[in-house]
């Protein structure tokens, strides 16, 4: 194949001045590496967000109490929402799958001679529905345990591994702050949440148990909870549900028209998606900036190819004398430029892989994912740069008159 010889010729020519070829390629190398790394970071962030939304359990709202306003000044007392609010939301707002009350606390748990500081939360079984979180081993709470406030505990995977190691925790007695509770279940592993916190570092007890034993009972609002997590069925209109919940809670709290809400509803999946979008926009911007360096690299290629054509005028003359057509010369220099860019692109890809690998090893950023599509696109694009910026020098070479080129000093 002639193309093999043309490639060989191009590589020979590039090897004549290795340092110059490398420096020329640098622009392309940096450009391609930068573009791929940026896109990889973007893809990594996207995947992370997808995972977070998934681990959240789909379409989820957080309902919390807000600061009470009195006469324009913000008072210190926070309006507490309670279990009845959760029940009402679940019953009355259409499209709601489940509304789970959640009372959060934290403290030490001890098993044998091991202790562990963790989150201690009061919930009922609806929470597992909202979070789409299954029991790996054991069982959920029974209605009786919930209503009585029994000392039974379901533990997260992290707590299990920290305290129980290889032994079976079911039926064991775990000391939770100042009382003993029987382990009845272990949850599936969930991983990190949106803030990077380990969601498996948690134990769950019935709300009543946590309230009576740890947080204490609020005299004015005996059934108060920290927040309510609400999940909607797939495909439901989240904005509509949010409005309905808001309306319901305003009625319940007797908030006059025009006054501020005494609660907050946050659409969590939307928040995460918005944050992801911000990251994406930022990464896209960076990728564009990086691609500018590709163009600058291309100009460098053009510059060096022009120098190369001038330097090798006699060679061009000789090739023409022994029968090279103008198109042969054009292809020769074009291929040289493409090889230069393609090689630069290849090295850039390798560097990008290296960077992303090291980044992932040390957990820098959200982690990078290099898609084959992006790699091929970058290589193709650097080849195109070779064609685009190599064409003019190659054309100039091909238009030399053989006799002038031969006699060139």
């Amino acid at each position, binding site marked *: 194949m*002639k193309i093999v010889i043309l490639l060989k010729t191009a590589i020979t020519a590039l090897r*004549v001045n290795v340092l110059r070829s490398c420096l020329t390629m640098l622009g392309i190398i940096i450009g391609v590496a930068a573009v791929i790394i940026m896109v990889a970071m973007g893809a990594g962030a996207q995947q992370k967000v997808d995972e977070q939304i998934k681990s959240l359990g789909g379409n989820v709202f957080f309902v919390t109490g807000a600061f009470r306003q009195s006469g324009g000044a913000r008072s210190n007392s926070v309006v507490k929402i309670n279990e009845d609010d959760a029940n009402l939301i679940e019953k009355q707002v259409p499209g709601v799958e489940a509304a789970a009350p959640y009372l959060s606390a934290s403290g030490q748990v001890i098993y044998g001679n091991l202790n562990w500081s963790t989150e201690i939360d009061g919930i009922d079984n609806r929470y597992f529905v909202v979070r789409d979180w299954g029991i790996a081993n054991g069982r959920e709470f029974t209605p009786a345990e919930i209503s009585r406030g029994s000392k039974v505990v379901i533990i997260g995977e992290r707590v299990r591994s920290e305290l129980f190691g290889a032994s079976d925790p079911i039926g064991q007695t775990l000391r939770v702050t100042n009382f003993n509770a029987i382990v009845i279940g272990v949850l599936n592993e969930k991983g990190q949440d949106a803030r990077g916190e380990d969601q498996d570092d948690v134990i769950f007890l019935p709300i009543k148990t946590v309230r009576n034993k740890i947080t204490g009972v609020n005299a004015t609002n005996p059934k108060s909870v920290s927040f309510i997590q609400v999940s909607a069925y797939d495909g439901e209109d989240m904005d509509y549900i949010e409005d309905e919940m808001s309306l319901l809670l305003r009625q319940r709290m007797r908030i006059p028209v025009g006054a501020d809400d005494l609660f907050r509803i946050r659409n969590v999946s939307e928040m995460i998606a918005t944050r992801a979008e911000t990251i994406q926009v930022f990464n896209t911007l960076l990728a564009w900036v990086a691609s500018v360096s590709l163009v600058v690299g291309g100009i460098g290629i053009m510059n060096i190819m022009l120098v190369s054509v001038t330097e090798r005028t006699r060679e061009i003359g*000789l090739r023409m004398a*022994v*029968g090279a*057509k103008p198109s042969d010369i054009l292809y020769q220099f074009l291929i040289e430029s493409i090889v230069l860019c393609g090689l630069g692109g290849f090295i850039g890809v390798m560097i990008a892989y290296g960077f992303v690998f090291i980044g992932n090893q040390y957990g820098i950023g959200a982690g990078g994912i290099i898609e084959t599509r992006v790699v091929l696109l970058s290589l193709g694009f650097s080849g195109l740069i070779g064609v685009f910026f190599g064409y003019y020098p190659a054309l100039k070479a091909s238009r030399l008159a053989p*006799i002038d080129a031969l006699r060139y000093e």
Partner: protein
Amino acid sequence: MSEPLLRVRQAKKVYTMGDELVWALKGVDLDIYQGEFVAIMGSSGSGKSTMMNLLGCLDIASEGSIAFAGQELSTLSKNELASVRNQRIGFVFQQFNLLPRTSALDNVTLPLLYSNVPEADWISRAKQCLESVGLGSRMDHHPGQLSGGQQQRVAIARALINDPLMILADEPTGALDTHTGLEVMALFQQLNQQGKTIVLVTHEPEIAEFASRKLTFRDGELISDERNQHIRQAADEGVA
């Protein structure tokens, strides 16, 4: 004699130097026949180089006609001229014009890159040509590893690769010492005896003595065209 290989009629070449027109050739008539060994002589500015460029299809005459093997050159396109140079003419230059850092073998195959010769035949053809100029043992050497005479012989092998009708040599001994020059001339004479037409451009009268016909140019005109009665035989002059 039969139809000439080269038939030049009223060939003129004009260059523009700023506003001035310079006539490098002022109407030359010339016939060169198959198998001749022609030396083109003249001082610099005489038009001999211009004549060579026209004969070698490197340039086109401004006026007049040049027919090569019966084909009128002025009607040919750039690509067709390239094809004529590739197939019919072998060039040998004063400065050898070999590709650096490229083996003798690859230098010799260079014209084949622009021909239709199947690639499978390239190596064997190049080897044959290198052997015929006595460089069979140095095919992998790069120009930098060869002496001037050896480099010129690689260039001659390159000129022979497409079995051309004519070899055009521009001051082939100009960059060589006398002894090596003799070797190269012996090679040309040997090729001529094998039937190759050779056109040699030189400004050294003693080199022209090896040719069978001497053409002398002055001021763009052919002023003398004579048979060489006493052809020097390079092979007899101390070439081992």
